[in-house]
Structure formats: C-alpha cells, structure tokens
C-alpha cells in the first residue's frame, strides 16, 4: 500500500519529487515507527512533502514531510517558535510555503496541474481545495458584528449556498453540540473566552471539513475555562469522523485524545509515535528535555 | 493646447508669489498656534462663563466656512474702523479658524500627560505657571507635534482662498495672468503642481519629524528607567 501511494505522488509531481518520497521513507525509518497499521490501509488525506517556510531570514519549517490519515487524531507538540503553528497555517492557506508541496485528499493545495506541470495555485484553486479544511484559532476570531447564530450560519449560507433555514438548522445542531444553543442571539463581546471558543468550534464544524486544525485552542483562555473547551474537543474527537491536527501545550489532553503525537523542534519533526511511547519512552534527548521542562512548569498553558 | 513658451514666460511671475503663499501659511499657522493655546486654556478655565463662551466660539468658528470669515474680517471690520491689508486679514482669518482646531490638539496633548506628573509638580511646590511651563506643556506638546505639522499642510492648501480677498498669492497671480491673456490652462496647472510639491515635501518632513521624535522619546524613556 505504501508503495502504491508513493507511485502516485511520483506520477503526479515531476521527477524531482520522486526523490522526495524516497527521502520520506528514510525519514520514517530514521525517526520513528510507522503510524498505526489500520491507517496504513488508506491513503493519507493530507500529505506534506519537503515543505519549507521562511519569514525573511528566519526559516521556521525545514523540509517537513508529514502525513495525516482520514479520521486520525494527531497532536502536535513542541516549544513555541518550533514551527507547529506554521504547519497548520500553511494547510489553511493563511501562509504560503516557500518550497515543497501539500496534498489534500489527493489534490495539490498550493499548486495546480497544468499540462502535467505544477504551477502556483490561484485563488480559485485554493477555494476549491480548502473547503476540506477547517480551523479553530487561538484567539477565536469570532465576527464581533454578528450574533452567535449568524456567526455559525453565515458561511454555510454564503459559501456552501445553503438556504437560510437549512443553514440555521445545521448551526443550531452544532451549537447544541458545543453547549451554546441557549445563546443564539448573544454577541461575541458578551461571552466568556471559553464560550467564544466553543462557538468558534461550532462555526468550523458546521462546514463539515474532512480535516480540522486546532491551533492552541486553549492558550488564550483563563485556566478555569480551559476544561469546557477541551471537553468539547474530546467529544468531537470521539466521534472519529474527521482527521484532526491538534496543536497544543496541554500534554495530558494530547495523551488522552491523540492517536499519534508529533514533536516539533526548530522547524523539524524530531520524533513521532503513539502517545504512550512518546510520553513514557521518548527516544530523543530533545523530546526528553522538552517533556521534563513541561513537568516542571506543571500546568502552564 | 499647452504652450511651453508661455509656461516658461509665466513661471517667474508665479515663483515671485510663491513666497507670499509660504509666508501667509507660516504667519497664519503662528496665529493658530498661539490662538489655539489661548483657547485651550480659556476652555479649561474654572470661570464658567469664560469656559462656556470659548466653547461656543470654537463651535461656531469650526462650523462656518473660513471663506465667509475672511469676508467678515476684510469687508465688515473696516466699517467699524479696522481696515486690514489683504495679507493681514488673511493671516488673521485663517489663523483664527485653525486655532479652533489646534485648541483641540492641545487639549488632547494635555489630557495625555499622566496624572502623576501633575501630582509630582504639586508635590514639588511649583507655582501654577511653573507647573505648566516646565512640566505639563513640554510633555503635552511633544506627542502632538506631528498632528500640528499636518495642520500646517492643511493650512497651506487653504491659502489659495486668500485670493478671494484680493491677496495676490499663487492662485491670485494665476488668475490675473489668465484674465490678461485668456490662457488659464498653464498658470492654474502650474499652481496645482506647486501645491503638490510643497505639500508633498512638507508631509515628508512631518513624517521624518515624527520618526525623530519617537526615537528621542524612547531615548528619554530609557534614560528615565
């Protein structure tokens, strides 16, 4: 199966990328065990290949290869500035990779194929592909001029083209799921941070993405509000329908929810594997050091 | 259509009036600076009547056209024995109009001085005059200097209005040339370009000033820390 996958990449991209996939294999061998066997049966839904990103002289991602499988829940951990947030932002098309390719469900994200060659994608192409992706931000970014119901229903109406009734029905179902169905008429300014983040989760879910990105969803919250948001995310994770990429500093949460943990440092994936292996038997010095620092800092978020 | 010969012929005549435009701008700005400060103080006065009259004055001047105010100064005051030259009338008229704007700028600056500064000055037993002169105003004016610079540029662009009270500045000269030769295209276009160059270079200057003040300000803050 893995062989097959690789062939497809090679055939899609040019010759140069053939080497990319070979290197990927090396990476996997060198760094960690392969992910769970059951997920190996299927094609990854997201595939990063040799992805680099620089801001000026600062290279935040260095030729990263990374696969995410349908329904898989991956927690991304690592020190701040390690490039983990950039990973998510590239996939959400908020930043453009400096080099490398990202595939979503078999389609190139940042490139499109013209006569067998990859050319930079235009807005139209991005629009088509990014419909599979949803994102929850650290600072929620609710629309302050819309009430809660409107916040959650505006995109289904405008982007998916649903009728107002249908969209609001869907929105209410989602708001119910995150426990916010009693605040439909409220405005974001009148909600607590935890409530705002739950609405933001509903707003992303209502678009029914295949991949959900959570970018430090509890980092901006007061400690007493973290729990309610994590509970909602756990519940969604338990449904197991979407692939999830959780960027987080909440280690115990990561251990509970994720199928796989990916440890980032200085723009590279240093180590990845099952939660029990990562947390109980980290192989690299850097991960050991990182986890130790975390125990010392305790509950810092 | 466009005659370069004519352009070069009238260029010296227009340049001759350039300094009138510039000096009218600077003089009017000086009036506005001083007038603005007076209005700002009068507005703060604890003497209610003075404060209220000042407020009404500011509101009235700001809401009515400067052109009409110039007419009042130039055509009405002589009937009460005060005849002013077009230049003086223009400088006073524009100066008074913009003093109402600058009084707001001063007010914002004064409000931005932290309370602790007032209390410290009181604690050091400064007289009210000393307090204003040495503690409050230096701190109040510094952050609003760029805003004042912008008003200087706004006033520059208002000076063509002075041609309406017969002052022969840039636009006035262009009009005279136009009515004598029946060629308006070149002189008025040139005047527009003059203003573009003047206001553009002035705005560059203000931006540079703003940057320098920021640096100085930070330097001062560091020294204080």
């Amino acid at each position, binding site marked *: 199966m893995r062989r097959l996958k690789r062939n497809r990449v090679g055939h899609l991209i040019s010759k140069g990328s053939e080497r990319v996939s070979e290197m990927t294999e090396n990476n996997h061998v060198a760094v960690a065990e392969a992910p769970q066997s059951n997920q190996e049966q299927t094609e990854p839904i997201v595939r990063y290949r040799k992805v680099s990103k620089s801001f000026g002289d600062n290279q935040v991602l260095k030729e990263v290869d990374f696969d995410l499988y349908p329904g898989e829940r991956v927690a991304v951990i690592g020190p701040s500035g390690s490039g983990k947030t950039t990973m998510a932002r590239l996939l959400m098309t908020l930043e453009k990779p400096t080099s490398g390719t990202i595939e979503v469900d078999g389609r190139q994200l940042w490139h499109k194929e013209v006569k067998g060659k990859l050319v930079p994608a235009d807005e139209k192409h991005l629009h088509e592909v990014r419909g599979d992706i949803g994102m929850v931000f650290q600072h929620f970014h609710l629309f302050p001029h819309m009430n809660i119901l409107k916040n959650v229903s505006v995109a289904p109406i405008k982007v998916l083209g649903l009728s107002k009734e249908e969209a609001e029905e869907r929105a209410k179902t989602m708001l119910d799921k995150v426990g916010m169905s009693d605040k439909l008429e409220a405005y974001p300014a009148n909600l607590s941070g935890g409530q705002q983040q739950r609405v933001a989760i509903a707003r992303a879910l209502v678009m029914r993405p295949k991949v959900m990105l959570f970018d430090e969803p509890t980092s901006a919250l007061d400690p007493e509000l973290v729990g309610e948001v994590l509970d909602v995310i756990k519940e969604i994770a338990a449904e197991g329908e979407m692939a999830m990429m959780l960027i987080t500093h909440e280690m115990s949460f990561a251990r509970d929810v994720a199928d796989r943990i990916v440890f980032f440092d200085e723009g590279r994936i240093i180590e990845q594997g099952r939660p029990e292996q990562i947390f109980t038997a980290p192989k690299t010095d850097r991960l050991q050091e990182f986890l130790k620092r975390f125990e010392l800092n305790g509950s810092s978020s | *259509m466009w005659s370069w010969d004519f352009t070069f012929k009238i260029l010296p005549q227009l340049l001759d009036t350039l300094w009138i435009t510039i000096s009218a701008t600077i003089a009017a700005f000086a009036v506005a600076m001083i007038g603005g400060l007076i209005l700002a103080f009068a507005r703060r006065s604890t003497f209610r009547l003075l404060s209220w009259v000042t407020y009404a004055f500011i509101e009235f001047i700001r*809401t009515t056209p400067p052109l009409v105010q110039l007419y009042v100064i130039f055509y009405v005051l002589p009937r009460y024995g005060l005849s002013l030259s077009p230049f003086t009338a223009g400088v006073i008229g524009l100066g008074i109009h913009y003093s109402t704007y600058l009084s707001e700028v001063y007010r914002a600056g004064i409000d931005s001085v932290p309370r602790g500064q007032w209390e410290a000055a009181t604690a050091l037993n400064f007289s009210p005059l000393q307090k204003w002169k040495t503690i409050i105003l230096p701190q109040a004016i510094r952050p609003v200097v760029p805003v004042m610079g912008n008003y200087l540029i706004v006033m520059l662009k208002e000076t063509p209005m002075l041609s309406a009270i017969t002052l022969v500045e840039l636009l006035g000269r262009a009009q005279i040339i136009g009515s004598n030769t029946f060629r308006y295209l070149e002189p008025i276009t040139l005047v527009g370009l003059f203003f573009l160059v003047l206001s553009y270079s002035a705005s560059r200057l203000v931006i540079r000033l703003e940057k320098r003040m920021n640096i100085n300000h930070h330097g001062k803050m560091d020294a204080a820390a």
Partner: protein
Amino acid sequence: MFLRTSLYYQAFDGGVIPISVYAQIFPQLLEGAFVTIQLLILSAILGFLLSFLGGIGRLSRIDPIRWISGFFVEFLRGTSLLVQLFWLFYALPLLGIKLAPGLAGILALSLNYGAYGSEVVRGAIQSIPKGQTEAAIALNMTPRQQMWHVILPQAFRTMLPSFGNLFIELLKGTALVSLITIPDMTFEASAMRTNIEANTPEIFTLLLLMYFVIGYPLTLATRWLERRFSVGRL
C-alpha cells in the same frame, strides 16, 4: 409681516439698524441656501462612493489598481480644493471640455473630499484585526465575501464619525464654489454686498448664522456617532 414697520429698530453692536434689512436679505440668502444644500448632498453622495472606490482600490492586491488609486488620492489631497475648482472651471475648457459651473463644483468637491474619504475607508479597513480575515478564509469565503460580509460591516462603524467630520468640512468647502459663479449662499451674499454695501455687516452675520444652522446639527450628529461607536465593539 406688518411687524416690519413697527419693529423698526434693533440694537446691533452699539449701532442702530433697521430690522427690515434682514427681511430683505434673508429671502435671497435662502435661495442660495437651497443651492448650497443641493451641492452638499450631491457631492456627499458622489464623494462617499469615491471614498470606497479609492480606499478599497489602494488596498487592492492588483498592482496597477493600487498604483492608480494611490496616485489619484495623493494628487487630489496634495493640490488645493480651490485650485482644483479653478482648474475644472477655467483650464479644462481650454482642453476642449466645458463643464457647467454646477457640474464643475460638484466634481471638484466630490473628488477632493472623496480623496480624504478614501483615506478614512483605507484606515478603517486596515484597523480590522488580521484574525478576522483569517477566520473568513478558514470558512472558505472568497475575497469578495471576506470584504463584504466580514471586513466592511466592522470597518463601517469606525468610519462613521470621520465621515461626519468630512461632511462638515464639505459644507464649509461648498462656500468656495461661489468663486466660480455658482449662486450658493456665499455667492448671493457677495452679490448683495456689491449692491447694498451699507448693509455688509448684516449680510455676513446672517450668512454665518445660516451656515451654523445647517452645520451644527451635523456636528452634533457626528458627536453622537462618535460616542455611540466608541463605547464598545458591538
């Protein structure tokens, strides 16, 4: 109106002036007031539209659009309104384009204030946090939808007080059109001054008051908008 004869004298600045003078001046100024108000409303509407055109144009991702709108805005802001007015009225006909005075007036006013307005629009749009655009992208909105449903509704609240201020400036600016023979309030006043010179003080006093009566409600409305929208983000 019979009072005109009985209420013959009224104190004015220490002098004594027949009140009937005002009755004579007022109707003519009122005629001019209608012209002033028409100019104000038409230029405001056109200027408002130009503000959005210029402001959004300067933020365009397409380079030529950004350059052209930047050039126009800076050009119109850098040259003086009265110079622009004279240029349209005196110079443009020599290039073969003759505009009616009213049209020249409206065009100059709306272009000039539209240029200032586009800076208001640009500033307000730029003041919306980047996260709002990012959230809209994450919901897969098109650039047009991002602007229309997310950015502009929020930016518009920030713009309102500044637009109010510009509206008052525009009112004052309309007085300049009297210099290109448009019979607005100031034009009527100037015309009367040459006819009945003795009454110059009354003419201009009444003129100032009339501008104040039109303008002050605008000032108050602007203050109200400022208070309303600075209290909190809703």
